[in-house]
């Protein structure tokens, strides 16, 4: 009896990210049972030092990745609103990466299927560790209309914004 109300979303305040990468550790331990930064569904980019930020699915209103999948390997979880990957069906064609405004999905490092945040079935592990450390970059909120695509930016775009925010006019030359 899931309703829209029960769906969650991870609110994010990227400028606060300390770059500790505990989200990567928690995510990969949950999904892969190992510490595996490149297999984490949330990845911390540091294209210039100090501008570290987590890059992960924003669950756009229209889910362009799901629409782009030629084999219907991607679906939206009714329960959580997350994009679910059927790894048996996925053909690792990368069309979801192209469709994503932030180029967020990435291929599993050793297997042929795409990695997209599944919100850990409604109890996201990355949020827990971020809250525990009181960095509060990540917070769980009920899913709503949050201008999702503002969060689905390419790594270079976010890095540039943060570099300017943190370092001022010098910021751009640091990338």
């Amino acid at each position, binding site marked *: 009896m899931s309703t829209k109300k029960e769906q969650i979303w991870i609110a994010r305040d990227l*400028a*606060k990210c*300390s*770059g*500790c*990468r*505990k989200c990567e*550790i928690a995510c*990969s*331990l949950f999904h*892969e*049972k*190992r*510490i*595996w*930064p*490149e*297999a984490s569904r949330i*990845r*911390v*980019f*540091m*294209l*210039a*030092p*100090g501008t*570290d930020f987590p*890059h992960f699915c924003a669950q756009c209103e229209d889910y362009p990745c799901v629409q782009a999948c030629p084999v219907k390997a991607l679906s939206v979880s009714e329960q959580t609103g997350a994009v679910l990957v059927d790894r048996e069906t996925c053909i*690792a*064609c*990368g069309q979801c*990466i192209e469709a994503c405004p932030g*180029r*967020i*999905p*990435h*291929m599993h*490092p*050793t297997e042929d299927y795409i990695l997209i945040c599944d919100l850990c079935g409604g109890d996201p592990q990355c949020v827990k560790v971020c809250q*525990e*450390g*009181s*960095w509060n970059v990540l917070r769980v909120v009920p899913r709503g209309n949050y201008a999702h695509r503002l969060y689905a930016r*390419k*790594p270079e775009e976010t890095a540039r914004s943060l570099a300017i925010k*943190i*370092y*001022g*006019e*010098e910021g751009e*030359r*640091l*990338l």
Partner: protein
Amino acid sequence: MILGYAGKFLEVDLSTGEVKETRFSDEVLRDYIGGRGLAAKILWDRLGGRWETVDPLELENILLFLTGPLTGFFPGGRICVSGKSPQSNGVVGSTVAGEFGVELKCAGYDGIIVSGEAEKPVYLFVKDGDVEVRDASHVWGKDAKQTVATLTKECRALLSKRFPMKGEWKEPSILYIGPAGERKVRTAVVAAKWTHAAGYGGYGSVMGSKRLKAIAVKGSGSLPEVADMDKVRELMQAVCSDVYESELWRRWGTGSGGYEVGAKTSSEPVRNWQEEWHDEKSFGVDQFESRVWVKPYWGDFGCPTTCLKVAVVKSGKFKGAMTDNPDYELQAYLGTNLGIFTPEENVFLASLIDDLGLCGIQTGNVMGFAAELFQRGILTKDDLDGLELKWGDAEAFASLARKIAFREGIGDLLAEGTYRAALKIQEMKKADVLQYAVQCKGISIGAHGIRSGKDYPENYSYACSVQGGDHTSTACLPLDDFRSELAMMFNDSAVYCYFNIFGIPRNLKFEFYKAVTGVELTQEDWINTKALRILQLQRAMLLLGGPDLKWKPKIHDSNPPRFHEPLPSGPYKGKTVEKAEVEAEIKRYYEAVGWDENGIPKSETLRKLGLEDVDKALEKLR
């Protein structure tokens, strides 16, 4: 099989371009762990027989980048850089924070062993098993920020080109040198992330001597399999929970040192250690927070402390200067030690030192030394190429730092580091300037004095350390004290940040080691056997020394003369360190670690530890 290791090491000979893989036996890994311990073992095995003739800045030196089994697991990622040190002519396990160690293990390697020297500037690009020696002429001469930006872009482009279906590539982790390392400046660092540095030891100059500008690593695998992942998770949580309850370093970084060290314990260098005290309000970290910090928490892989803070000068003549906190050491050495007491000037100098690839501690020390000689009229404006090196003049010190990095004029002499520069100036000026050199065995002393007795309480902290003035590796008794050099050696051998161990139970790091490797290790076994063995190796190579300098324990196991002058100000005014007391303590220390009355490791000690070849090599010193 011993777990927690990737299982192989990468060997690169830059002279031939040959790349191969090396393995060490489980026995060696059990005894020497990794990082600092393994560095001592590798260097002894490969160079020990001709140690005294190996010039650290020439072809035959070996440069090591070593992780440890706990790297990536124990919160706070680091990598250990080592080789024959161009500062001490011994071995320093010099660690630097960042993701490099984690990336390397994820790429399938526990370490990189670099030998030979390239004909022209190169950098290494490691992507899992693919290792390339690439041209670096376009980044040679570039500063830290330009180098990081260029190589980050270049390596990401290579990855996207080679693996286009993988999606966006995260940046590789990069270790690099600045212009100072390229010119073999002995106070040059191996750096990461602009502001992070392996400073003690001077390995930036070794990297420069090999024409190795940088190493970039991208590992796409997982960290290695461990013996008990549930236990590892539980222990990671225990370390983090402890840190979360402790506010000091989370809030202020080490910057609270201006208050804790500069005011309370009165042991911060002020004007080349002529004083060790300042009023806490004159240079408080709270001023840094309000005036220059733009990001309150910045950290490295897995770190709960995130003691770094990003600092930017927002207006005025130093606008645009950027660095981290600066941390306590650089607040002291590029601040109070130079008579500088404003955050903006301090950030300006730290930012410049980062850019040049210099060590803030070693360079701040040699610049303070030069400024005191100017104050005393021993070095004149003419000697300093027209610079008036007055206390508090940030721009004069900036000019001097550039001269050091580029080895121009007086900078060429000071680029040799405080001790070697003092010897030369002594000869030039026929004056006793060694009395103003605050260093031990070629390594300038960290910003923690011993005169007040309230900070580092042992008066032989530096005198007996096998890493000289390194404030992260000081001698103390009893040997199993949590601050002793033998205890600290574990952190730098298992390779993680020791800032995350202060509140945890003493045995936790050994439990952690067992959960990762599957190997039982007791504190007793570590202190009395394994660490003691590594200590003897380091001591042996330090005393063999050469080729330009050798240390005689009777003379050089001592404090800088300044530490025997009374403190002129502050709450401990008048306090000093008495030579006779130090000598008595040194004797006690020698006995505890099995060295004879002349400070040479005894045959009996070495043989008991299975170091017969070291015993033989030390015969000539006895």
